[in-house]
């Protein structure tokens, strides 16, 4: 059971995280519109569930904490209290606390406890100050007679009169079970009175007309007897009297005698009891044998009416799966894709139509399987967007700024792993925007802007990528200041001819920090290079645009998934390379004449546009001579186009990305490798890095000229 309990706790932790997120969203909504009934209801429910489940799984501190919060929100829900700023702040503290508590298993430090105490106290004072007349009902009913059992040596005999309400069956009661329960307590003799049953014509088969007199001799105490009727006590007439405490009536004869009296007269007076009691010793009890109906129930046969239509609702069901299981599935699918490629290749060289069919069917299935598997891992990015609302709120409070936060495209789906890795970079960028970008209300008004700044966070699909944009209408970035700074720090040369865009991208270099002063919020000595590195790790690209004085937009372009991509397979000498198909614009031929016409410059005219190109043979120093006609693959990224010169373009390839391992960590022109159908390895090219590499080559080339 303890193992089961632990598993339950794990589920609870996950669930608690979701509930806390839900609560947080509700609170943020409530802060905007304190009378939003639906949000109040949802907040209450979240706390209620947290409390209930928390105490089930032994998180008593969580239960205590949420109990107070729940009490307050219950009153809010009933319209007896208002949502105030203080209440929302206090509730946020509850969320933070619980997050700490579930993260740190059961035991908290004494400092935790102190804070919990303090929060609870705050809630209580909150309650008493805003609602003096409120009195909490604290009745606790736990139907367990065992807790109060007083073991008595001698049994007590009770006379119980019990008349259920006619509609008692419609409350789900089973009277036989109750009589059985009584019988388990000791010697029990029920007497049923059927005289209330009407004539057949008037009978309602669903109603109860019977009442009972029960003689019960038990040692379990009155509470155990009352517990039997715990649920039904408001749906019946019930009287329980003890008629003897000496134990003498606890005999078959005594029960028989008394029950027959009850059956005849429905009354039991003191003389009757006294008579039996005195006679009890003489063991000569009058026998009267009369029919005794013991247990009776008027459950008439219920007609089963054919099922009428029940509300048809769209099926929305989901299951929770551990991420590791999904990762494993993705890996397996990756392997399968590789094997399938081998199969296709092996079959291609055979004259075996049947095998061809099988290979094609396998390919189709594998494609579908791959697609579906990737889909499983996709989650809407809105899940992390919501987390930032809290961040924005706290930050702007802390910095004395007013920020309106908008999100868009929250339904855009990305690989779960990717989304999680996006969290930190986004936090970094948002911090920067609020800290350095958006001005204080005073300055904004002086500059003729709206008092509160705007921060837009949005996501959208763009081919096989997702674009995530963070836009603020703050001070923008002055390229001149960046340039000066960068020159001072030796990041760029003083006379380097750089476009504004290039200068702005300097802020992503390690060692660069835009802030003039170090603040608590974003000046932590780490620049935006962290962001760039994280996005690079996701094979993404980050780009910045800014209008001095009015806005800054940071755009991140992230591939949909990390595990399998559509690639274009290229060949140079004996080496094979993969370029993500999403980056490829077109392939054109490069003849010797073209090269000669360019006079040694690596430029080609593509329908009127000059595109610089670079030979993979040169980059990777491949042995051998290039063929007469080479191929140029034109890749495009953020408006920059480059050409990659290769010997042959082989074709599309489902690429399962494998990392190259630590040894190749520093080679950034390559983002991974894949295994081809024939078992050979192909290198996956990192296009953004190659573009950077080319540009730096050009620059150094320009300088040496």
């Amino acid at each position, binding site marked *: 059971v303890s193992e089961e309990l632990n598993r*339950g706790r794990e589920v609870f932790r996950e669930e608690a995280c979701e509930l806390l997120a839900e609560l947080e969203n509700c609170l943020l909504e409530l802060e905007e519109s304190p009378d939003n009934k639906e949000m109040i209801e949802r907040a209450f429910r979240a706390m209620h569930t947290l409390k209930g489940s928390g105490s*089930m799984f032994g998180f008593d501190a969580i239960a205590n904490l949420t109990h107070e919060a729940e009490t307050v929100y219950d009153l809010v829900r009933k319209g007896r209290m208002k949502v105030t700023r203080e209440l929302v702040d206090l509730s946020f503290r509850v969320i933070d606390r619980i997050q700490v508590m579930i993260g740190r298993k059961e035991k908290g430090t004494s400092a935790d406890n102190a804070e919990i105490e303090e929060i609870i106290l705050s809630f209580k004072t909150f309650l008493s100050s805003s609602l003096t007349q409120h009195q909490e009902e604290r009745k606790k009913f*736990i139907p367990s007679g065992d807790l109060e059992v007083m073991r008595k040596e001698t049994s007590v005999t009770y006379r119980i009169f019990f008349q259920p309400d006619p509609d008692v069956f419609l409350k*789900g009661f089973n009277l036989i079970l109750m009589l059985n329960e009584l019988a388990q307590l000791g010697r029990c003799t029920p007497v049923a009175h059927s005289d209330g049953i009407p004539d057949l014509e008037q009978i309602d088969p669903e109603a109860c007309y019977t009442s009972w007199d029960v003689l019960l001799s038990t040692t379990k105490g009155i509470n155990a007897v009352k517990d039997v009727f715990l*649920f039904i006590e408001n749906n019946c007439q019930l009287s329980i009297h003890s008629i003897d405490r000496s134990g003498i009536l606890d005999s078959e004869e005594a029960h028989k005698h008394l029950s027959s009296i009850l059956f005849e007269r429905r009354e039991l007076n003191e003389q009757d009891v006294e008579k039996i009691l005195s006679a009890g010793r003489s063991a000569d009890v009058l026998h009267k044998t009369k029919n005794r109906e013991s247990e009776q129930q008027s459950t008439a046969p219920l007609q089963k009416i054919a099922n009428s239509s*029940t509300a048809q*609702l769209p099926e929305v069901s989901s299951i929770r799966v551990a991420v590791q299981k999904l990762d494993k599935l993705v890996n397996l699918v990756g392997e399968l894709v590789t094997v399938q490629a081998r199969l296709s290749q092996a079959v291609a060289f055979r004259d075996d139509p049947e095998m061809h069919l099988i290979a094609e069917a396998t390919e189709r299935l594998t494609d579908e399987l791959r697609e579906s598997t990737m889909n499983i891992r996709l989650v809407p990015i809105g899940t992390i967007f919501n987390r930032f609302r809290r961040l924005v709120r706290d930050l702007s409070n802390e910095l004395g700024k007013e920020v309106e936060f908008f999100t868009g495209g929250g339904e855009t789906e990305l690989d779960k792993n990717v989304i999680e890795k996006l969290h930190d970079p986004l936090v970094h960028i948002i911090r920067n925007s609020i800290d350095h970008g958006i001005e204080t209300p005073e300055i904004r008004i002086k500059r003729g802007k709206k008092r509160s700044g705007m921060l837009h966070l949005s996501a959208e699909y763009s081919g096989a990528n997702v674009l995530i944009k963070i836009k603020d209408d703050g001070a923008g970035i002055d390229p001149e200041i960046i340039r000066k700074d960068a020159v001072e720090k030796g990041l760029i040369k003083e006379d380097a001819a750089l476009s504004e865009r290039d200068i702005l991208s300097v802020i992503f270099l390690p060692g660069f920090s835009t802030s003039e002063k170090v603040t608590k919020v974003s000046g932590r000595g780490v620049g935006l290079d962290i962001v760039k590195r994280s996005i690079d790790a996701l094979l993404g690209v980050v780009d910045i645009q800014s209008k001095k004085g009015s806005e800054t937009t940071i755009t991140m372009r992230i591939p949909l998934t990390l595990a399998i991509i559509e690639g274009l397979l290229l060949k140079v000498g004996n080496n094979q390379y993969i370029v993500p198909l999403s980056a490829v614009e077109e392939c054109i031929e490069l003849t010797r004449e073209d090269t000669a016409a360019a006079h040694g410059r690596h430029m080609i005219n593509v329908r009127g546009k000059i595109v610089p190109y670079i030979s993979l043979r040169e980059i990777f120093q491949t042995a051998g001579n290039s063929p007469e006609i080479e191929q140029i693959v034109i890749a495009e990224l953020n408006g920059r186009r480059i050409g990659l010169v290769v010997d042959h373009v082989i074709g599309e390839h489902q690429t399962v990305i494998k990392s190259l391992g630590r040894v190749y960590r520093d080679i950034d022109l390559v983002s991974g490798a894949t295994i081809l159908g024939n078992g050979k390895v192909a290198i996956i090219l990192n296009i953004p890095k190659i573009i950077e590499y080319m540009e730096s080559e050009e620059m150094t080339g320009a300088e040496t000229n």
Partner: protein
Amino acid sequence: MMIKEGMMSKRILIVDDSASMRQMINFTLSAAGYDVSEAEDGMDALKKMNGEPVHMIIADINMPNMDGIELTRKIRTHADYKFIPIIILTTESQSSLKQEGKSAGATGWIVKPFSPEQLISVVKKVLG
């Protein structure tokens, strides 16, 4: 002719929006030999019951879409299920809700937090 109900395994439907709660109750009741199914809220419960044999319902009060009280009302008007016991889950701060549940037709209640023993004793009490 009376069919002995005790002979077949009894089916209990747990209705709670908390997965951990459902899991806990499910485990306890399954271990005690009951046939258990789960639903996330009142709507879901009604959908899942649809014609299936269900002998008892354990339902939370606070749930999205359809709460436990509304569910109880609905079940009490349903020809197939109107006689089955319904136990509602409450917390001690909700005794007014408990009353509301009772008048909607709930058979009994369990106060959270409860132990597996308490749960079993309540189920035995109303279902046998």
